[in-house]
């Protein structure tokens, strides 16, 4: 149980549980060869708590109460928090009162009072609480029954033990009332252990992301610290962040794979142009699906260097296709659409048609923000309440993963010429949108629901392009559904907390006194008769507080992050595909010519920017547009 965690190559580990601060803690570890972390989710339904992977599959499920008594994690159970090691609520300054056995005495307890003692024996700790009830007759108070409750704790080690001195886990509670002790409860000694959750890194792309690490030798905490230290900076300053810029080539380099396939003896040439930080492989699913349906003679997909200036990439593409004979069409996704347009413009009438899928014809709002600045901005939106380095590292790792998955072109700022071409108002865009285009043109615009669009983008980025073969939607929709579930669960927890607090006296089996707090009730309420009354009341009161805190924390943070992301990618325009504003995806009318035609994909079935090349919806629309453009021999 103790010692450093061993993480195998290409695996992620997630562990979680409640700490003594009543907060939910998650720890995430990853190996040295990959940096992406897939966000999972936690779902509570009734008393059932489930940990989900990013696909929504249940990785672990347990009872909520049992979960709070997590084994092997810092802090142990909620009960530990209620009766923290080293003291309790009835002690006072008299050592004999704190520990009567140390004075050779049996605890003397006055009517309606409680005394406790603590003793340790190696790995065990005994906490004895003696409570004497009271009876009242004719205005005189006299002693009632005396109840002794003994809680037995066992020391345990934690992987995170270095940050905590002593950790005890409640293993038994016994009670006696002026007689032999009987077991009160042992259900919570059946501690459920949260096993490590393992995510396999099984795509070649993940391997390629290895170069994205800020510091290959840094562990999670170091890395988190680095991220925390990055403050929002002006664009030009951020470009000087050497550690980030140095990895830019690895982040967004040339995939190095070109595809040139002769499909049939006759037909058209179909060229597929990828977007930023991508490569020819992004079309691995869509390319064969289209080629098998339409009369495509030859298909080509080039991996260009995505951080080069768009004009440079277009020149490379134009040179590569200049010797083709027959009708040639180019399909470009995102930045690839701009490259396709420019290459076609340079080709005169040699290109028959261009179809752009979610391309930033008028620039990308998000290009105005370098990635490292965005990371910091996101962190600031989530807030500084990290509750220690562990949760902070989780937060920052998640942000880094999300950002590096989708907007690495912000990385390195001025070192990436393409960024200057993508900023709204860039001179390149002005040239592009004022040059005659003697070819057929069409655009496909995509708009996803704004709610949870960031999570949709993150989820979709993890999708294997070949998922199209099985008509499987990109993962973003599932992740979004999971986040929505978590959000609703958090709303429920928040509402439930009010109810639990109100109903706490009823849960205790006693009579409601109309008060709301352990200490307030200590002497004020009518005869509760037994210690368990107070214990249970206090327990549910704390449960209510915990429920509210967890629920409110999740709701608030998710709302803030969601609004921030929508504002970032859409500016004043709400509509976007999670990454590019909807309006910029419209193929502009080049002066002196007509407005090119377009189709739109909107609604719950739409997939976000990072999933568009693996989207069944886009596949169908692209098939339709090519039909419009008359793609036949």
């Amino acid at each position, binding site marked *: 149980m103790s010692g450093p965690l061993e993480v195998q190559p290409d695996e992620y580990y997630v562990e979680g549980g409640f700490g003594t601060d009543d907060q939910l803690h998650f720890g995430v570890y990853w190996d040295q060869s990959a940096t992406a972390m897939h966000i999972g989710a936690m779902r509570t339904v009734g008393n059932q708590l489930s940990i989900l992977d990013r696909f929504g599959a249940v990785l672990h499920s347990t009872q909520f109460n049992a979960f709070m008594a997590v084994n092997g994690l810092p802090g142990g159970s909620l009960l530990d928090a209620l009766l923290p090691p080293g003291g309790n609520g009835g002690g006072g300054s008299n050592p004999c009162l704190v520990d009567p056995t140390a004075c050779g005495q049996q605890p003397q307890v006055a009517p309606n009072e409680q005394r406790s003692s603590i003793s340790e024996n190696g790995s065990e700790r005994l906490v004895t609480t003696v409570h004497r009830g009271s009876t009242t007759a004719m205005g005189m108070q006299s002693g009632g029954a005396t109840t002794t409750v003994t809680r037995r704790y066992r020391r345990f080690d934690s992987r995170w033990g270095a940050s905590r001195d002593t950790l005890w886990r409640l293993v038994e509670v016994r009670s006696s009332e002026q007689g032999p002790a009987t077991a009160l409860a042992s259900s919570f000694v059946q501690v459920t252990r949260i096993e490590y959750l393992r995510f396999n890194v099984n795509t070649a792309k993940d391997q390629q992301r290895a170069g994205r690490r800020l510091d290959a030798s840094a562990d999670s905490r170091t890395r988190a610290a680095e991220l925390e230290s990055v403050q929002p900076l002006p664009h030009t300053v951020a470009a000087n962040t050497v550690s980030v810029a140095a990895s830019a080539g690895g982040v967004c380099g040339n995939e190095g794979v070109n595809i040139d396939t002769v499909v049939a003896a006759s037909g058209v040439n179909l060229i597929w142009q990828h977007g930023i930080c991508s490569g020819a492989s992004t079309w691995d699913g869509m390319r064969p699906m289209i080629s098998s349906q339409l009369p495509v003679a030859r298909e080509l997909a080039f991996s260009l260097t995505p951080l080069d200036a768009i004009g440079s990439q277009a020149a490379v593409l134009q040179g590569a296709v200049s010797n083709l004979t027959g009708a040639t069409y180019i399909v470009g996704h995102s930045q690839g659409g701009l490259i396709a347009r420019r290459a076609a413009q340079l080709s005169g009438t040699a290109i028959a048609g261009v179809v752009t899928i979610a391309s930033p014809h008028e620039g990308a709002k998000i290009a105005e923000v370098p990635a490292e600045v965005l990371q910091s901005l996101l962190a600031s939106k989530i807030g500084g309440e990290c509750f220690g380095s562990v949760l902070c590292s989780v937060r920052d790792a998640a942000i880094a993963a999300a950002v590096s998955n989708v907007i690495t072109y912000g990385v390195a700022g001025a070192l990436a010429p393409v960024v200057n071409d993508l900023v709204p108002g860039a001179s390149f865009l002005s040239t592009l949108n004022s040059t005659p285009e003697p070819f057929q043109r069409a655009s496909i615009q995509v708009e996803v629901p704004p709610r949870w669009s960031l999570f949709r983008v993150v989820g979709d980025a993890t999708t294997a392009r070949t998922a199209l073969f099985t008509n499987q939607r990109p993962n973003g929709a599932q992740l979004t559904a999971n986040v929505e579930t978590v959000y609703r669960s958090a709303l429920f927890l928040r509402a439930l907390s009010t109810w639990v607090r109100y109903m706490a006296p*009823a849960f205790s089996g006693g009579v409601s006194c109309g008060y709301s707090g352990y200490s307030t009730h200590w002497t004020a309420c009518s005869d509760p008769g037994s210690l368990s009354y107070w214990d249970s009341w206090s327990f549910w009161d704390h449960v209510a507080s915990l429920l509210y805190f967890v629920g409110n924390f999740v709701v608030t943070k998710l709302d803030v992050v969601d609004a921030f992301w929508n504002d970032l990618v859409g500016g004043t325009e709400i509509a976007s595909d999670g990454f590019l504003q909807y309006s910029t995806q419209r193929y502009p009318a080049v002066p002196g010519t007509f407005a090119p035609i377009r189709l*739109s994909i909107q609604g719950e079935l739409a997939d976000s920017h990072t999933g568009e090349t693996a989207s069944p919806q886009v596949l*169908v629309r692209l*098939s339709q547009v090519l*039909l419009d*453009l008359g793609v036949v021999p």
Partner: protein
Amino acid sequence: MKQLSSRASLTTVVTLLCACTEGTAPPPNVNDDGLRLLFRIPVMSTSFVVPAVDDTRVVIAPSAPNLWIVAYDRLNGAELWRSPRPAGTPRSLSIDQNRVLFAGEYAVALDVLTGAELWRVSLPVSASLCVTAAYDGSFYLGTDHELFALDARNGATRWRTALGADWEFRSIVRGVTVAGDTVFAAVERYLTVNGERSQAYIVALDRSTGDVLWTHIEGDGQQMSYAISEVAVTDAAIVFGDRGRNVVVALDRNSGEALWRFGGELGFFGPFSPPSLSGDTLFITSGDSYVRALRVGNGEVLWQIRGGSSMDSQALCGRFVLSSDSRVNVHERSSGRILQRNFGNESAPLSSRLVRYGRDVYVFGAQSGYGFRCGVE
């Protein structure tokens, strides 16, 4: 007191649970008005093929690489037969004279009962962009510059009419409709080598001889202008959508003179399917994501409703209008009000045209095929 508390607990829990569920009111139950699911079957068809339906079966061409023609029982979706087809995906299927007819690189006829191939005729140019028609023993199709009438029994050419012998650039016959003694062809004529400027030609031909009766030219030649599917025909007019300009056009059936035009939202693709007609009203969907009801006589807008994504087709269905924007939406026929989105709760896109046969409507997509039974009007 404890009983009271328990009751209060239960009430509170129910209240909280209700508060956490979706706050929107449930959609009207269209089933109460007679719209119900006949079947849902697994298929894979991402192409925009127009299925063929007769009294017994509905026939589709699934997406490649599944090179089949498949017939399903139109009432329960049971597969009746499947037959191999040539490479490529036909734009449409037709049934006539107990034959399933379709065209791509070849014109092909299958036995409607067994799926056995009866004949196959090689075409000079692919007809895979043409919505074909079959009527009274003839199979009508168009390729590049030509229209064909083939004998449905054996594939023999009954007539063959060349279009635009002087046309410099490419042309595409997009759809053929037969009405009475006339064949109407929707043709796109390229005005440049790449077709970024084109015009829509509607050509009326004598059904028995192939002689051209009249020709209507739509579009100013400054942009793409074409009807991508066949036209719809009423007693007095023919109506089609100009896909390139997003305009609905009505022509006099006998002369080809324009009666009226209705323009949709600029910059979007126009109608992908011909309008559905009912009395003096036509219903049409468009790439601008609108569903519209127009008066056939003058093009007056009776209602228009914007959906989500670009629309592909529509079908009348009892009191409702069904529209497809990759999913089936149910509209109130009198107002266009959307009663239910994604009827069938399909997660994968639906791509085929919504086709109506009697009281039933069929649609097929990337994952599923549906048959719906409509109520009475």
